[in-house]
């Protein structure tokens, strides 16, 4: 019988790596938590001087956008309470992350948002009027009245439309980043998601694939401490979300999300590394959701006003950036000037709301377009049936409010 094992032969064929082994049971639990990268402290003092490198114009533009968004968010939240729009989500306390990141990216980079990134949209040029018309759902809305408020997108600005089911945008960003690498493009796919959304199964697949397939994808987790009412302790254990990324083999940074200079520098670095090494990068921003989750939420029901106030006055991105600019002499702090900016934004939002509410609703043709690339015959029939119905009962419908009437 020649089928017996020749042991000496077998052991020579297997390649031993002695350093792989230990001889005691020593399970691993807590890794050293990753520290947050910071450039300016809570009072705007420079604590990492080599990162004081952002051009003055850009810093001022960022600052002015952050205060503008604060005013706009305030007014649009109130306008929901007044019944002028049906729903809204504010981004109080988080604009250093969105504006800073988008300023550090290139315009050709694709952004896959979650839903709290008005900072990203507006840095790239999305206007107050576009936002308000989308929230109202009138015929001027670029989205043809199809989506709920704050669910905007813009092909021109390379920002993919906001989608309600959580985290679905993250594996999509892995896919886009894969396409960019394979086509040799100087482009990355940057995707936003909250620390709560990172609990979804899609997060795992997206991360695993991005590293395995070498995708030009930048993962941006905004840890704002709450997912509606769920605090981080009930959402996950381990070292926040950043602690998970190295396990996928991915390069990881944790950044103080209320420090604009740290955000800008960190994202700029990550982008360069992605293009250079053709592999993904993970950034977690530690920040805080000062406002409610949305107009359907009342957050003091599950967190204390003291906690909210401690972040609002003690660790506020607008204050920290403002103090830095003042101390470095990078901005003339003139109360009137900044108040005027805020007043102008308020007036512009009010005008947009007024103008927007006077507009007609989208055309009834838009019920049937874009379901497919063409209006298929069965939809054409339904459109004809609808026009007949509306013609027959025209007294019962506000036809004059529809763009294009019948």
């Amino acid at each position: 019988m020649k089928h017996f094992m020749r042991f000496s032969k077998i052991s020579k064929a297997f390649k031993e790596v002695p350093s792989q082994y230990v001889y005691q049971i020593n399970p691993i639990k807590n890794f050293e938590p990753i520290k947050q990268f910071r450039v300016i402290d809570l009072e705007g003092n420079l604590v990492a001087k080599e990162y004081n490198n952002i051009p003055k114009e850009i810093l001022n533009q960022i600052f002015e956008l952050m205060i503008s968004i604060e005013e706009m968010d305030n007014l649009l939240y109130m306008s929901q309470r007044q019944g002028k729009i049906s729903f809204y989500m504010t981004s109080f306390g988080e604009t250093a992350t969105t504006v800073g990141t988008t300023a550090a990216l290139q315009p050709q980079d694709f952004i896959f948002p979650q839903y709290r990134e008005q900072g990203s949209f507006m840095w790239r040029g999305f206007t107050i009027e576009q936002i308000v018309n989308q929230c109202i759902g009138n015929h001027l809305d670029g989205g043809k009245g199809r989506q709920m408020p704050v669910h905007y997108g813009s092909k021109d600005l390379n920002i993919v439309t906001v989608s309600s089911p959580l985290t679905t945008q993250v594996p999509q960003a892995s896919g886009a980043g894969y396409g960019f690498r394979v086509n040799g493009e100087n482009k990355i796919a940057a995707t936003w998601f909250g620390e709560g959304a990172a609990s979804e199964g899609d997060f795992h697949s997206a991360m695993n694939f991005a590293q395995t397939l070498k995708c030009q994808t930048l993962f941006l987790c905004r840890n704002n401490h709450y997912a509606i009412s769920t605090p981080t302790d009930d959402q996950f254990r381990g070292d926040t979300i950043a602690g998970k990324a190295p396990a996928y083999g991915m390069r990881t940074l944790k950044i103080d999300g209320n420090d604009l200079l740290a955000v800008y520098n960190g994202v700029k670095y990550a982008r360069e590394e992605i293009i250079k090494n053709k592999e993904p990068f993970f950034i977690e921003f530690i920040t805080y959701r000062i406002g409610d989750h949305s107009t359907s939420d009342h957050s003091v029901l599950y967190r204390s006003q003291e906690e909210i106030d401690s972040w609002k006055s003690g660790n506020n991105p607008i204050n920290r950036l403002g103090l830095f600019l003042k101390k470095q002499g990078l901005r003339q702090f003139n109360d009137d000037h900044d108040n005027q900016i805020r007043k102008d934004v308020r007036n512009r939002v009010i005008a947009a709301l007024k103008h927007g509410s006077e507009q007609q609703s989208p055309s009834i043709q838009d019920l049937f377009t874009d379901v497919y690339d063409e209006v298929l015959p069965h939809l054409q029939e339904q459109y004809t049936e609808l026009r007949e119905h509306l013609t027959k009962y025209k007294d019962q419908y506000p036809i004059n409010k529809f763009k294009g009437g019948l």
Partner: protein
Amino acid sequence: MLRIVHKLRSGFAKMTVREAINSAMAQEIERDSNVFLIGEEVGQYQGAYKVSKGLYDRFGKSRIWDTPITEAGFTGLSVGAAMYGLKPIVEFMTFNFAMQAIDHVINSAAKLHYMSAGGLRTSIVFRGINGAAASVAAQHSQCFAAWYSQVPGLIVLSPYDCDDARGLLKAAVRDPNPVVFLENEIMYNEAFEVPDNVMDKDYLIPIGKAKIMREGKDVTIVTFSKMVKFSMLAAAELEREGISCEVINLRTLKPLDRNTIIESIKKTHRVVTVEEGWGQCGIGAEICSVINETNAFFHLDAPIVRVTGADIPTPYAFNLEELSFPKAHNIVEAVKLVLK
């Protein structure tokens, strides 16, 4: 909870559908220590739509499980718990989000009893809002009645009023099979007068049996959930014109109560089906086929008319959304069409 029920006159109380579902869950959790509620925001937040209000305070976190955001995670976990013998009530914030977990509902819960030759069973209820609400656009407005009703192994229920909500949910929890329980956000706020017996802790409605909401002799309207309301409004309007409608509230979508439909057709000879969801392969399509295959066909004096939602993803703009779903006047038109 029973204390929020308002006594109107002896023998009756007034409550909303939300309160009906809440009280049914509370009674079942009290009755059977294996029953628990699991989902996002169901605990101290009192539920995304406040349906689980007061339950966390009353039963604590061992019976009301708040979860991280992962439908696939908590549904998979619940199916596993059910296989072990627990009885989860799984709340989806909306059935639109249940698609992230649908493999667990179909490939596990629905099919395992059969595939394990009876060895594994899952006594589990999947509940949440289904179909359109108001101004929530395409990803929050789809009706999943047709999808789930197609699957062997699942029981699919859809309540209309408080009576349905209490009786059907309690029956669902006690049933050994996996149940998909399709609620409606707009109906949550509707209040109904409820006779005392419906508040009883053992009030159950038989699964697989439709209810005749209103008797009539000229046409049969077959429908479920919120569309029962519009059908009743249409029937009242038609009554004024001398047309008598029989309105059938299906209550159970799977197994479908063919007999009630057939017996009604023998009386009226004309049928209109009403649903909010898309027409293709929908509940109305199934009813048409069922009638066609049975001797009910020979009792028909006219083809069946279906009233369904428009064949489009739901738009947000108010005027467009209004035109996307059936209203009472569409049902009135359909009845007149079938009588022509």
